[in-house]
């Protein structure tokens, strides 16, 4: 008989919600967490070396070398961190587990070669005055750190947070012990300690990864095929890491606020210490962030998409949406609360703290601003994370772009003003980014079902 054969089944059962994709990408951003541990480690080495390593400027040289290695390796690997985690998450979602290991190796090989070439060029061209051992250690440290970030991102994509923290802890115990043992060799000794500990950390992570995944292929480069990486994630990773360091670099390379340390490396005595201390103050916020977002929010997030997938009534979907929005709001609010307490504590006890650390109380105003700023940074992490879950990659890219741009502009501007305004550039930039992010987040939640159904 006449009529179109009723072959519409496929049309209806076709999975149309890209929301199915668990956006694991946030894990990359979280992985920036371990570097708090490194700040503590470096500070400790510095404190213990006082009096043993002479002259004292060697300690500063060591600390700045390590800081530059951290910054440059984070910015360089930032390009691939997020897109790599997303790539791996997508493959796991497709049950292509055997794609995971070869692409990790492929990326690792690429990273080692590229960072090695960059590092080699830098030590040959920019550090001609330094000792060969120092230059080789600097090269090693840079290559090791780049590889470590790749491995960290990979493991956090697998949600192996505990393993990461444990390995970092062991690594830093080794860093500190070796550095202290080798103190008599001065700068090279401290650097050698750093390299040994970090290399152990890297090797441990690699062992863990090789144990956990198997594949027919040892190394492959599917990740670099056209279309395999999301451009927005590449830019997001780059923007975010560059933004975090933008104000620091500006202070380092503004002649009025900085002084030469070693080779081309410069430091800003006024700016550096408070900001690194301030990063220690975000630990409570990070803890709340992980708990709130990873458990509460994710639970409601899953419920919402289950409702969409399994066919719930609209009212139930909306209810789930509201719960999810509430969990997100609650999570962000809790981060804010705990960070507010931290800020108040710094207000109250900052002076004693500085005294205890043997620092001038003149640092206090800057420390306070920096603690506010780093607290805002945790909130920003939360917002970015939620937006990643909602798969709003473009929005995250724009937010991190805004962060980079405003941090650069505001910091440059604050330097022009006076010492009293140092740190405000960074803080205001984060405030702006967080406010814009909150506003967008609210809009996304209001239109969530509409966008889930009509625009995907």
């Amino acid at each position, binding site marked *: *008989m*006449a*009529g*179109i*054969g*009723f*072959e*519409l*089944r496929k*049309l*209806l*059962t076709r999975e*149309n919600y890209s929301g199915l994709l668990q956006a694991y990408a946030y894990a990359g951003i979280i992985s920036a967490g371990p570097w708090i541990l490194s700040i503590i480690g470096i500070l400790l080495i510095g404190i213990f070396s006082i009096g043993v390593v002479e002259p004292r400027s060697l300690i500063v040289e060591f600390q700045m070398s390590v800081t530059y290695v951290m910054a440059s390796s984070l910015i360089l690997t930032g390009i691939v961190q997020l897109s790599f985690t997303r790539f791996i998450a997508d493959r796991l979602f497709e049950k292509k587990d055997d794609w995971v290991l070869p692409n990790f190796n492929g990326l690792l090989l690429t990273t080692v070669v590229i960072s090695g070439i960059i590092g080699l060029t830098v030590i040959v061209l920019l550090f001609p005055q330094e000792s060969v051992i120092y230059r080789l250690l600097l090269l090693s440290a840079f290559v090791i750190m780049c590889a470590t970030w790749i491995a960290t991102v990979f493991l956090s994509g697998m949600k192996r947070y505990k393993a990461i923290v444990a390995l970092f802890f062991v690594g830093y115990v080794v860093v500190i012990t070796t550095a202290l043992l080798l103190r008599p060799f001065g700068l090279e000794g401290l650097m050698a300690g750093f390299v040994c500990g970090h290399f152990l950390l890297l090797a441990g992570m690699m062992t863990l990864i090789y144990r956990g995944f198997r594949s027919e292929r040892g190394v492959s480069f599917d990740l670099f095929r056209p279309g395999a990486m999301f451009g927005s994630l590449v830019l997001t990773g780059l923007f975010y890491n560059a933004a975090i360091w933008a104000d620091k670099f500006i202070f380092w390379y503004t002649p009025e606020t900085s002084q030469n340390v070693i080779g081309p490396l410069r430091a800003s005595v006024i700016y550096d210490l408070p900001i690194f201390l301030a990063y220690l103050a975000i630990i409570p916020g990070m803890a709340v962030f992980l708990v709130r977002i990873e458990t509460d929010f994710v639970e409601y997030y899953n419920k919402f998409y289950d409702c*969409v*997938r*399994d*066919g*719930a*009534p*609209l*009212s*139930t*979907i909306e209810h789930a949406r509201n719960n999810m929005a509430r969990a997100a709001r609650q999570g962000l609010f809790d981060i804010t609360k705990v960070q507010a307490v931290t800020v108040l504590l710094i207000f109250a006890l900052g002076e004693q703290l500085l005294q205890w650390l043997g620092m001038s109380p003149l640092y206090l105003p800057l420390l306070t601003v920096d603690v506010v700023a780093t607290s805002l940074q945790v909130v920003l992490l939360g917002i970015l994370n939620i937006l990643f879950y909602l798969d709003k990659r*473009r929005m995250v890219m724009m937010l991190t772009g805004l962060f980079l741009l405003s941090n650069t502009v505001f910091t440059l501007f604050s330097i022009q003003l006076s010492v009293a305004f140092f740190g405000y550039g960074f803080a205001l930039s984060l405030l702006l980014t967080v406010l814009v992010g909150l506003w967008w987040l609210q809009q996304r939640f209001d*239109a969530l*079902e*509409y966008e889930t*159904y*009509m*625009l*995907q």
Partner: protein
Amino acid sequence: MSKGNRQLPDTAAPSANSETVADVTLLLEGTFPYVSGGVSSWVNEIIRGFPELRFAVVFIGSRPEDYGHMKYDLPDNVVALETHYLFGDSEAPPLRPVQADHEAMAGVCHMHDCFRAGADDPQNWLANVAAECRPGGKLDQEVFLHSRAAWDYISEMFREHCTDPSFTDYFWTVRTIHAPIWTLVRIAMNCPTGRVYHAVSTGYAGFLGALLKLLRQRPLLLSEHGIYTKERRIDLYQAQWIADNSGTFERELGEISHFRRMWIRFFEALGRVTYSMADDIVALYEENRLRQISDGAPPERTHNIPNGIDIERFAPLRAQRPQSVPQVFCLIGRVVPIKDIKTFIRAARVVISRLPEAQAWIAGPQEEDPAYAEECRQLAEGLGIGDKVHFLGHQQLTTLLPKVGVVVLSSISEALPLVLLEGYAAGIPAVTTDVGACRQLIHGLTEEDRALGASGHVVRIADPQALAEGVHHLLTDSDTWHKASAAASARVETWYTQPMMFDSYRSLYRKLLSWPASDSN
């Protein structure tokens, strides 16, 4: 979404085809020339029966992959063939929300209220659709698919009307149901111009005809073989893919899936629009004509024109048959669920148990529903008659019929099946299920017709025992067989010949070709 096969570019500007290219533009849904079957053969006959007229053919299908190559050679008087698919691949959504016109959305509300209330004014509604749903109109497809206003409307409708709990299923049902409207408006704007538009079903093809009549101001003729809405209903009742998500606790006893009702309502609305726009509405037999009227066709525009066949082609076959009745009973038709091939196979089991030398043949293409064809083969195997049931595929009737003793039809729904008439012309009696016009074909319609005697047996649907007994009776009782054979030949020669059918259509075409469409309404 569409591609022109012959001569005409498909996505030309609306005015590109304003020149008349054909006398009759046939609007065909899922039939000629890509699918073989009763309706397709009928279309083929009509085109060949009027060599003096130029025909254009507009084929509407679901998806390209559902159809193979052409099953019929195009007659020389077909001047254009266009092929369109309603359910192609969807495009990627836009990055930004689409803005909807407020008035247009009010129009949508009205349009849906019409659907729901039973469409008091289908013509006006159609005019709105034709004006607003075209690309760039206030109700562009983009607006429907991606605008916030459309979203608000859909979610409000769900809250107000949907009794199924699944919003996701509701949403996709709404989308899938409505998407073809925009495609059809686009097709109508670019379609080859004809002096008469002839739709061979309601549904999407009929809706296209209604749009064409409105846009081109030329008359619309509607021939319905089966009743489209009824056939869709059958599909829908049997479709497994339509979700029914109410849990056992939540469903009142006897609730029919909301989504089935949505589909049925939609097809009914398409039918009403087509009936209201058609100048002449042709049914194959009286029951269907009455059904059309009850579905909204204005009685004064309805006619009955039964199918007619080329007696000269089949009459000589009577002489080719061996003296004794061939112990072969044959089902001629596509291997699809609506033909209920399984009941035929079960009946074959019963017949063969009693008459081991008998053979059961199934002559018809199997590619339309391969899964069902496979089930049928499994059933024959499972009943231990795999060697007696022959799946012959598509067959030339003139070589097949002389070897057949009884033509069997086990369908659960039919109109006025051509295969029975063709069998009759070759002098073969039939056993059929009591569907469509089958009773009238076996026992006769008028007093005079009935006097010719029974040309076989009519049994109820899905009753293999009764079907088998009918077949067994005819195959074994030579006397009855010869009487039935004579009645069959006489019946088809008296009431169902091609010249009679062509004469009726000739007068309809003549009237419509000369009439301005506006006068007829």
